[in-house]
């Protein structure tokens, strides 16, 4: 019973972490937009100074600030399980970031921001619906299994 409850809890955690990571990415985009637009701050400075709330994004930012950001490295970097389905979009965004004029940069950030906002909403709904569902299913499966065994 405990084991199946734990499996259910892991699913819930997965959805919660995914939501937190997407929220963190959205906040990073807002920060990028403000600092690039206002003071034309250099990209490594913005990435280094951003205070990431999740460990995953903190690792990603460290790499992004220090590396040359070639596509192969980025594909590996965004292979993180919580955002694997958004990998293509993020690789595309980060490989283009910093390579054009200010207007194009802001357009790119705003486009990603819109996508992330939508993702954030669906990830939040996933936590409430799927996360809780899997947790409850885990407990129920555990109880059912215990009843059968007894």
């Amino acid at each position: 019973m405990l084991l199946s409850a734990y499996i259910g809890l892991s699913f819930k955690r997965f959805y919660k972490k995914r939501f937190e990571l997407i929220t963190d990415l959205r906040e990073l985009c807002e920060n990028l937009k403000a600092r690039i637009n206002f003071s034309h701050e250099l990209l490594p400075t913005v990435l280094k100074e951003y205070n990431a709330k999740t460990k995953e994004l903190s690792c990603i930012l460290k790499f992004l600030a220090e590396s040359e950001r070639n596509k192969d490295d980025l594909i590996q970097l965004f292979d993180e399980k919580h955002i694997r389905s958004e990998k293509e979009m993020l690789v595309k965004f980060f490989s283009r970031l910093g390579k054009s004029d200010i207007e194009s940069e802001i357009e790119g950030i705003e486009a990603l921001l819109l996508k992330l906002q939508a993702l954030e909403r669906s990830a939040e709904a996933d936590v409430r619906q799927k996360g809780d569902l899997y947790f409850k299913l885990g407990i129920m499966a555990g109880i059912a299994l215990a009843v059968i065994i007894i």
Partner: protein
Amino acid sequence: MLKEIIPIKLFYELDKHMDIEELYELRFRIGCPVKAWGKSGTFFVKEVIVEREMITAVVERATYNSIYAFNHQIKQGFIACKAGYRIGIGGEAVVEDGAIKTIKNISSLVIRIPHSVSGCADKIIGSICDEKNIVKNALIISPPACGKTTMLRDLARQLSSRKNVLIIDEKNEISASVDGIPRLDIGSAEALINLPRKFGLEAVIRNMSPDVIITDEIYDDEDICEIATALKSGVSVITSIHSNCQKFDKMLAKKLGIFDVFVTLGREPVGSVLSLSVAD
């Protein structure tokens, strides 16, 4: 710093051939070996043939992967790096509505490395600043790469012990500041970096109240007007101009009658004072 910008292979090849500290200039052109000019002369680094990827990488590193922060300079054909290196860019200009939007297909680069030569202004400082500490308006004239900026830097250093000196460093070449801290010796002079002169010296004079303004490379009537404004405010100005030293007097002296001292520099050796004339 140079190591962070150029390909590592090139850096080690240069290091084999010369003292990196004595390097003045590096030229990259696609399909050709890198050309280096230093104190010991000019030579080609035959081991390093320039490719487009190399040029792109140099530009990306020089701009810290932040082209948007440098595009206003790229439009004018240069990148002023943090450490005071100025990278000249050759490529294809993208023109939109009569204005340059950017430069694409970059095919050549010229990296100029600034140096601090303490005491290089010793020969002229006496003519610019007299015993009563009155600083005359001076113009340093020479073709490119003859040491005008180095001369201005040393003048700033020497004058800053007697006067309030403000450097308007449009391309961050005089002070070579990193995060606002000068990397080259400018004494106690203050530096305003990346401020185009066209934005007006008047406000700067009001806010900073300097005795002397030092600024690099004036080009057109707009620059001369700005300098005339500074002079009206009672501030002395020392600046430089690109010109053929021999023909200068006839061509521009009348137009630039606002200056009291004219110094011409030569390239053999770099920074040598060819002539010094004081207006009546």
